[in-house]
């Protein structure tokens, strides 16, 4: 533990700003370069940083794998659900104008926000999941052989 003291302190300071930055990129996807993919990767990077510095058990206590599975699935569901809903209301698949029949521009905004949310969920959850899967396997080779 003494070896990693500085790393742990700095990581504790930095994880919240990284997550905040991911939220900023997600919400500002319509105004500046950004959007769901970038925000998802940055959010996953924050959790992976926590897992790298504090250990996999601590990361899995903070963000359990079952929660990550649920987030990954709900991302695709939100995205496809927007399309199916607009089809059920009367338009075509992924026709955002139907989300707000009186003001189509508001419907477009709402559709884009929902869709980017789905992208954020799926991308961040997949990255965290792949990290958990790789880091969770026991190493078949010893420390000295590496």
């Amino acid at each position, binding site marked *: 533990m003494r*070896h*990693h003291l*500085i*790393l742990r302190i*700095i990581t504790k*300071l*930095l994880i919240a*700003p990284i997550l905040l930055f991911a939220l900023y990129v997600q919400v500002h996807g319509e105004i500046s370069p950004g959007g769901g993919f970038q925000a998802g990767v940055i959010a996953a990077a924050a959790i992976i940083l926590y897992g790298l510095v504090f250990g996999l058990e601590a990361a899995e206590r903070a963000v359990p794998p079952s929660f990550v599975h649920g987030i990954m699935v709900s991302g695709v569901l939100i995205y496809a659900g927007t399309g199916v809903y607009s089809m059920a209301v009367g338009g075509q698949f992924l026709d955002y104008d139907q989300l707000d029949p009186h003001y189509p521009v508001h419907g477009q905004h709402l559709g884009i926000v929902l869709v980017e949310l789905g992208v954020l969920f799926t991308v961040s959850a997949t990255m965290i999941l792949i990290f958990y899967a790789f880091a969770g396997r026991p190493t078949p080779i010893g420390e000295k052989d590496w």
Partner: protein
Amino acid sequence: MIGTAADIASWLFIVSGSAGIVISALGLLRLPDFYTRLHAGGVTDTFGAELLIIGLAIQSGVSLITAKLLIIGLFLFFTGPTATHATANAAWVAGLKPRLAERPDERPDGDNP
């Protein structure tokens, strides 16, 4: 739009930041030992990039861009030395010892704390 003094100041910062990065790259190539190369490599993150960011912040006046640049500068200020420390710590724990000068009269065992 921006005064000549601000232009000269930002030019000074950007040039010195770039010179710092070039010197650090030179040191990375030429220094003999891992720990000395780590000294040189850490200069890029904290000295070169910070001066560049300050120069760019002066160039863009008082605006949102300056605020974003200063936040990035603060982030680099924290993570640059941490990365250098993490690398040195990993090398030390793995067993790599720095190459010290041989002084048979002062250090009989050649060990270091």
